[in-house]
């Protein structure tokens, strides 16, 4: 099963490689990983999307907690939560494709954030399947480049991950 794990960790050099090292050393899979400092600059917040049986997910959270620099770990997918991912897509936009591309971007509530005579850069946020759907909807041959941030997640309502 797919799980979204949120981690608060000390914002120190090397902390990220400890987490990555743990996943590769123990053969856990990482679908995506995002990390950045929080409002408290001494802490970073990381979101990892992984997959595994319940036993493996239990081991993953225990092993993460064991890392000295990890302050807190929660499995967001255990309860209601929101996940978002940002994607930037550079597409060819000439002739009739130019109009069509704008139309589809609008339908997906994407924004065009860079324009040249022949191309657009479209910014899109949403959960992973929405971003996938967008890529499905446009003409594949027009895609010049895509970049995705990986998933960030947060619990709904009163669920708060803080020290």
């Amino acid at each position, binding site marked *: 099963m797919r799980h979204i794990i949120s981690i608060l960790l000390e914002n120190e050099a090397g902390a990220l490689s400890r987490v990555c090292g743990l996943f590769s050393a123990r053969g856990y899979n990482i679908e995506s990983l995002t990390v950045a400092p929080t409002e408290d600059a001494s802490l970073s917040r990381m979101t990892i999307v992984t997959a595994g049986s319940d036993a493996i997910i239990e081991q993953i959270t225990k092993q993460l907690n064991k890392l*000295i620099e990890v*302050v807190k770990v929660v499995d967001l997918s255990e309860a209601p939560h929101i996940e978002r991912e940002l994607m930037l897509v550079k597409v060819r936009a000439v002739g009739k494709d130019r109009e069509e591309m704008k139309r589809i971007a609008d339908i997906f509530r994407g924004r065009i954030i860079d324009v040249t005579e022949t191309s657009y850069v479209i910014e899109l946020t949403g959960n992973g399947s929405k971003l996938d759907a967008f890529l499905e909807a446009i003409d594949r041959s027009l895609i010049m480049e895509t970049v995705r941030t990986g998933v960030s997640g947060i619990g709904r309502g009163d669920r708060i991950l803080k020290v």
Partner: protein
Amino acid sequence: MQLTGAEIVIRCLQEENVEHVFGYPGGSVLYIYDEFFKQDKLKHVLVRHEQAAVHAADAYSRSSNKIGVCMVTSGPGVTNAVTGIATAYMDSIPLVILTGQVPTHYIGEDAFQECDTVGITRPCVKHNFLVKDVRDLAVTIKKAFYLAKTGRPGPVLVDIPKDITMHKCEFEYPKTIEMRSYNPIVKGHPGQIKKAVQLLLDAKRPLIYAGGGVILSNSSTRLLRLAHLLGFPVTNTLMGLGGYPSTDRQFLGMLGMHGTYEANMAMQTADVILAVGARFDDRVIGNQVHFASVQRKIIHIDIDPSSISKRVKVEVPIVGDVGEVLEELCKQLTASKEQPEPKALAAWWKEIDAWRSKKSLKYKQGKEIIMPQYVIEKLYEITGGDAFVTSDVGQHQMWAAQYYKFDKPRRWINSGGLGTMGVGLPYAMGVKLANPKATVACVTGEGSIQMNIQELSTAKQFRLPIKIINLNNRYLGMVRQWQEMFHGNRYAESYVDALPDFVKLAEAYGHVGMKIERPADVEPALREAFTKHKNDLVFMDFMTDQKANVYPMVAAGKGLSEMILAEDL
């Protein structure tokens, strides 16, 4: 007063009451060595290879409950030390390793003797640090000692660039350390302990399965109290030996791949297992699926939550310090006034005694060829069972574990988790330095001993009268045994050819050497070594049976109750 980084290192070690540092100098640690030179409180033990420095510090820790400390230089000093660090890590041994590093402004430039120490050691330390500012040095060393010892212990490494050892700052050694991200649980959850008590009282075929955690947490007397309170059988893992007295009636011997028949049968068929500081590893329970095919309830006490429910399903997990939890269990059992049902327990013991009567460790000693088991039995007799015994890795290690009946904790020193050949001699050095009055024997094989043979020189310099028991079968015996059993007798590269004359070798290093070839000479030789040569290092080269195998054996991938016994052959 302002001190240099090098002075701070020495002062920190003194503040931690460190007495011995095992190490080897080099360019990046020269300022620190200069400070060693200027004082005489801390003793530096110069080994002949960095691997041995870490092993010696590791055994110093295992045998004394103090924290072993070692120091090596950057680059090759560090890479040589890695095997030692990984060995200590696998067995959760508290160590502090101080490493030199190239100056901060050279890091990343492929400088002479630069290596990514923090990166290379990351997977085999509990934690590691790179010190980038001399003002962080003291607090980092304090953290290293604190982390090494608390929670699940382990090696902690501090990498110190050379310029940091020259920079100056005010020295203040922190009294305590708080880390918001590190708060190991000590006390067991009361609700879980209550559940455990009830399970134990209701058990019909109970077993206490105790590992190295009992020794690391200094709780062997509590374990004994609990076992006697309940009247339950006890088995130890390889790492747990000495955590429960081997001569106690309730002791079934070691379990696992080379465990006794009774211990393995009891483990496989118990209805309630109390696991104490042990981790159900593959060498202990054999095939996971086979083990899981039997219905049983497991209570698992461990300081490390990730050790629980990792390989087996656990009914009652108890996270906490083994000693604290055992104490609480004893208290509640005494208070409850209930007893496990005597009839069921008697029937269980009857079954166990029948397994015992198989005498799965018996062997035959003839008149011509020395049996390795016999040497260990005689060693046990002559040392009154009171020696510290280190071993290397192989058949000799298993025979030492099976036939030397350890009654006290911290007496059996070996590499369980990583299985590192070459630990035996440096381990014996560490033990002897931590326990100067103790009798120290190193049981080894002609393969293993050659992996750190250079340490005979260190032992000479520091006058360490270790007794080396070389069970010389002219084979990498454990490899040969597997080749005999599972690879159609094809002894690929397991014959040890061109062996040195160990007697001459020992003498060349300034020690006493003996070669023993006949069974009748075993006892007199040992006696001579331990009495006449009490104060010498004696290398005893026993020519043992080349074809002896270790039994019982649970072959890799087989179930715990599917043992091969000597008598089956």
